[in-house]
């Protein structure tokens, strides 16, 4: 993705909708990743009883490590996905399911 974004601007005054869309997709990916880390690390690091409104030392340390490990896990899975050639075609079955349900007749078979 960065390959496309790294190209020097040919004209500094025109808006390239493709580049803009790519930037938007990158933003969305980052925002949803952040949301997942926040959720997962709060489940794993902050226990359900709220004795005090501050994060204690243990919770803070756990959170730091959790984010770090999440990012590493993300990279490992990214490498697996890349190696396996995971792409939009892997979502085809979802498209099929969506089509079936939106047309009002779920698959009988």
């Amino acid at each position: 993705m960065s390959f496309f974004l790294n190209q020097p601007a040919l004209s500094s005054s025109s808006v390239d909708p493709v580049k803009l869309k790519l930037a938007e997709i990158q933003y969305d990916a980052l925002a949803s990743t952040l949301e997942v880390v926040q959720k997962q690390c709060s489940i794993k690091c902050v226990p359900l009883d709220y004795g005090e409104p501050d994060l204690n030392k243990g919770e803070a340390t756990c959170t730091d490590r959790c984010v770090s490990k999440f990012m590493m896990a993300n990279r490992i899975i990214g490498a697996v996905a890349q190696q396996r050639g995971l792409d939009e075609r892997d979502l085809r079955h979802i498209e099929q399911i969506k089509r079936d349900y939106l047309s009002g007749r779920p698959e009988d078979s």
Partner: protein
Amino acid sequence: MDQLNYKEQQEFQKIVEQKQMNDFMRLYTNLVDRCFNDCVNDFTSSKLSGREETCLNKCAEKFLKHSERVGSRFQEQNQMLMNQMRGNN
């Protein structure tokens, strides 16, 4: 986003502003979700008990501090990754 030209950056800024509103609302919804789930479990009254209120206050503050911390760590890790990628190009 230093790869976008000036005009594109302006356009992108507009898109991001809209999205940030959504992101904020989602964070807020998650906050209420988590704290309601953890703090409010007794339905013998339609009013919040003192204990539940205290719990909600502490929970909200703690959850926000946690999100903030995750945000800054996330930012750091991401920056490191970006620098590595730039170094490899």
